[in-house]
């Protein structure tokens, strides 16, 4: 898979359920970030996890990072209809001799009220 690939590509759940999205990447990273994007809007930063961290919480968000497996997960607990959006992981890494933020293809989350 390419750097920063999320799965599933699409997820539909009922309000109140938990949503889990996964991200896999290929190279060593400095940090990994999760962003959300509402339709027609820009990306909004949600959470950053450093390469030496394993888990981080922010409100209803929980992010894990497993550098040995080169994977991360984003858990949204007690989802709300307003959580409906696309979610992207982005890896901060050196690639091709430069440091850049590389985004995945995203997971489209639909929370049914």
């Amino acid at each position, binding site marked *: 898979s390419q750097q920063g690939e999320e799965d599933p590509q699409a997820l539909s759940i009922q309000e109140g359920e938990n949503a889990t999205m996964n991200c896999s990447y290929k190279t060593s990273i400095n940090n990994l970030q999760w962003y959300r994007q509402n339709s027609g809007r820009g990306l909004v930063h949600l959470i950053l996890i450093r390469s030496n961290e394993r888990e981080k919480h922010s409100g209803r968000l929980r992010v894990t990072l497993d550098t040995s497996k080169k994977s991360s997960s984003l858990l949204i607990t007690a989802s709300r209809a307003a959580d409906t959006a696309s979610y992207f992981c982005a890896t901060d890494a050196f690639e091709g001799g430069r440091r850049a933020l590389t985004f995945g293809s*995203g997971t489209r989350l639909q929370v049914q009220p």
Partner: protein
Amino acid sequence: EPEVTQTPSHQVTQMGQEVILRCVPISNHLYFYWYRQILGQKVEFLVSFYNNEISEKSEIFDDQFSVERPDGSNFTLKIRSTKLEDSAMYFCASSERGGMKPQHFGDGTRLSIL
């Protein structure tokens, strides 16, 4: 809460024409970025800018592209001679610190090349 603002929201241009996309980053931010998102594809890094010069650029950012901070508030992306494949959403972002720290994005400019 401070925002990154981009203008115009939609730009339609004939192929071969020059286009300038404008961004006003958050006022106390020092690092600026441009990304593009072709319809249905990933957000792709174009360029980062700090201290009035380009810090990093991707292979997409060829000689047709340039960036400028003409004054203390604006940050612009110029495409000299547009091609059909330049049609995309272009996002500007800024951050207070470098090292790819959390970036604040504008809502983008939809560029349509005819």
